[in-house]
């Protein structure tokens, strides 16, 4: 995407001004989005995103700039401007003499799509969305169906003053179906949104009709659901997107973004028992075609599989370059960013609870009264206090070990370190699901996942009588 001599000039200029480490991130993305409401195209858009981010380290202090002007004068001006801003102009570093000899890493195509970005006319995409629309109408009460297709083809180049030169191409596709069902003035919504690091072969892995049907059935279930009960109770959390609980309650607490500043309740706890012994928690950036997978992270390092917690014992944090500098922990290929407009920080990739041995039905046995949280929405956490929440999209009351009537509208709340100690049993039916995670370096695609599991007590924010 950029000429090697120009990259070398920019990084060399930075080094000559006394910078300890310089990194240039270049991105060119093409995106397409199509939104279909009740079979008719509401909006379709396409676009090119093109920019670069220059990050300079002075010890552990960081200056960052981004621009859309990728001409040689434009980029050199940014480098001049940044070093001047830092007020270190005039300090010359002998290391800045001479060009850089880059070690090039080209993409290996580990997650390459089998259907290229430009294959198939737009009418083909529209037909697939209409299949989802038709299948979502599982009952006359399903009044509105909205189907969207999001396609993203991202080329990145990350080079640095240590001679690193890494390229990657990431193609991601997601199908989003939202349904609205109405009966006697009551309105409920259903949702299904599979996504993978693939092209339009997503439609083979996740047939649009199945996705549509799932969203339609969920809206119909919620139409007959009552408000969830309120109070502290045992909760069985479903697999796949159920993993959002640990994403919030645990994952964010293990990023060096907060650990390096001792602003996470799990700081300095390596080797300690921080979770129940049935919990093994893994963050894997290498899962073939995973929604959160990539060959390299956004700092140019190869991604890896990182075991964060093994049988309840904290084994590793998620570490980016800056976090490694401050803490001394080895980087884990976890430096990620939304795009060139934000500097990277340590982030999750595809994070999941490893399978356990308890049969799913055994999780429900012995629960006098509790909640089965079958499908989840998003959540939030404050790493400093560990307080977290996440939304239950589709839930059921558990009475005397049996799953009974559906309930809706429940936020589960608690403190992460307490909740992860209350995981008493984990089943074996691991599944993952895609989502977008927002944090300091913007919104990045991640997978969350887990098998069914039982938490002995969580506060359920339903309707108090």
């Amino acid at each position, binding site marked *: 995407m950029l000429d090697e001599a120009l990259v070398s000039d920019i990084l060399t200029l930075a080094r000559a001004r006394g910078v300890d480490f310089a990194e240039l991130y270049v991105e060119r993305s093409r995106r397409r989005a199509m939104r279909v409401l009740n079979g008719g195209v509401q909006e379709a858009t396409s676009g090119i995103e093109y920019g670069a981010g220059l990050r300079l380290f002075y010890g552990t202090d960081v200056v960052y700039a981004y621009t859309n002007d990728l001409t040689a004068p434009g980029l050199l001006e940014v480098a001049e401007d940044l070093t001047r801003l830092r007020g270190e102009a005039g300090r010359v570093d002998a290391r800045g003499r001479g060009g850089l000899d880059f070690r090039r890493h080209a993409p290996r195509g580990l997650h390459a799509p089998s259907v290229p970005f430009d294959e198939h006319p737009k009418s083909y995409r529209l037909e697939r969305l209409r299949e989802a629309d038709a299948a979502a109408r599982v009952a006359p009460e399903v009044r509105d169906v909205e189907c969207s297709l999001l396609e993203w083809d991202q080329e990145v180049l990350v080079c640095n003053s240590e001679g690193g030169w890494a390229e990657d191409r990431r193609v991601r596709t997601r199908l989003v179906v939202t349904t609205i069902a109405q009966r006697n003035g009551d309105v409920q919504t259903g949702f299904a949104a599979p996504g993978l690091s693939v092209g339009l072969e997503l439609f083979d892995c996740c047939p649009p009709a199945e996705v549509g049907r799932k969203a339609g059935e969920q809206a119909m279930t919620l139409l007959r659901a009552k408000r969830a009960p309120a109070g502290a109770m045992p909760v069985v959390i479903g697999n796949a997107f159920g993993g959002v609980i640990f994403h919030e309650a645990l994952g964010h607490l293990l990023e060096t973004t907060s650990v390096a500043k001792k602003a996470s309740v799990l700081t300095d706890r390596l080797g300690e028992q921080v979770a129940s012994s049935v919990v093994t928690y893994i963050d894997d950036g290498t899962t073939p075609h995973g929604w959160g997978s990539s060959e390299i992270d956004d700092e140019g390092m190869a991604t890896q599989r990182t075991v964060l917690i093994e049988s309840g014992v904290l084994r590793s944090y998620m570490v980016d370059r800056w976090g490694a500098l401050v803490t001394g922990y080895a980087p884990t290929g976890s430096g990620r960013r939304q795009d060139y407009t934000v500097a990277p920080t340590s982030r999750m990739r595809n994070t999941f609870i490893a399978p356990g041995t308890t049969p799913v039905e055994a999780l429900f046995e012995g629960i006098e009264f509790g909640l089965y949280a079958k499908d989840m929405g998003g959540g939030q956490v404050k790493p400093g206090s560990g307080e977290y929440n996440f939304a239950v999209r589709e839930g059921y009351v558990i009475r005397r070990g049996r799953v009974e009537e559906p309930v809706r509208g429940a936020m589960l709340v608690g403190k992460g370190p307490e909740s992860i100690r209350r995981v008493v049993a984990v089943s074996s039916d691991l599944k993952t699901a895609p989502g977008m995670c927002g944090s300091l370096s913007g919104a990045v695609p991640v997978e969350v996942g887990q098998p069914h599991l039982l938490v002995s007590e969580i506060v359920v*924010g339903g309707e108090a009588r």
Partner: protein
Amino acid sequence: MTLDEARRYVLERARRRGIQAEVLGLRDRELTLRAHGGRLEQLTRATQAGVGIRVVVRERVGYAYSEHLSPEALDWVLQEAEENAALQHEAVGFLPEGTDLGEWGRLGQSFDASMERKQQATLDMEAGLRADPRTHRVPAAIYTEREREVSLGSTEGAAGRYRTGVAGIGATVVMREGDSIKQSADMDWSVRFDALDPGRTSLRLVERTARLLDARPLRTGRYVAYFEPKAFAQLLWAFWPLWSGKAVVEGKSRLVGRLGERIASELVTLVDDPTLPEGLASRPFDAEGTSARPVVLVERGVLCSYLTNSQTAHALEHPNTGHASRGYRGVLGVAPTNLYVKPADGLRRERGVVVTELMGVHAGANPITGEFSVQGLGLWVDGGEVVHAVEDFAIAGDFLALLERVGAVGTDLDWWFAGTAFGAPTVEVGDLSFAGGE
């Protein structure tokens, strides 16, 4: 190419191909300083620009955008926009009649303070927080300023340009007393650098965080809720789409067909005003070139208006309120600017829960159904006095039912900014469901 050159290039090409086109150009400038441990640890300086194109071909609308302003990229974008338009099933699209909107600069000298003063303000923000012995960590103290230049042109005669900007100072703080730990974050925003006061912001953040220490669980039940301004503003952020003309047209709002009806307590008056002189999201015209004017959405509990753009106004046979919104990457939508609940006579906190902050609103509130279940932080008050802080609870209900149960509205209007400004005074709501740990 510059934005203006790109705009001219696209409009000229569109005219030659006999299609209607509108070009929205945006240039954003950002400066962010982050202090930690008495030093500036991070500085970000940036510009980002791009053009967004909306075309109408045989009354069908298509969109495309580019940050790469080369003739090849712009030709691809125009081609894609035409293809995207051809997909539209219904032929109902049009571009509004355009006028000369003029040139508006709102920034004046507002961000002209020296870099040294901005750096000092950031360091002062952190030092102010560290001055309290209960401060455990300050993960980040931040100063940020964002300028935006907007230029709009269309084959239908729209032409205009304006500049806006906001500056903010704030921090995330973790406070500790014994085993009790609380984390809070807050930002104060202004359209003028000189109006920001790191001393005031840090003091208020310390007070607001420290009062939550030593919190106890809340017994599950139904109580009076006193939403502090920023907490109620978070609910407005989640539920403003109820008033979106686009949501109404698409059947995604429970306010469909209810104009003229009472939908809230008569203490509730809701206004969106893009013309507020100090408004954080004020602007002279919207994303299609409709001039800005204040709109009363709810007056003394009665639904008076939706927020509309030219397309939704046409579909609903409703006046165009000038609330078209679009970034260059996005499609035409509707969005509020400075949306606020009008202050009233004030209130007294007698017995119930003061809700100081909400968490998980993005996940626990559904603007289509109006239902919410969200995490709260707050204080238990009795006999008009704060007894202790409460934690680990969730509030659940229906937003429209909540508006009907508003029992009093305070005088202390404050703003919460998320690109759009949401404002509210303290709002008292009777009989709300609280799920707690007891």
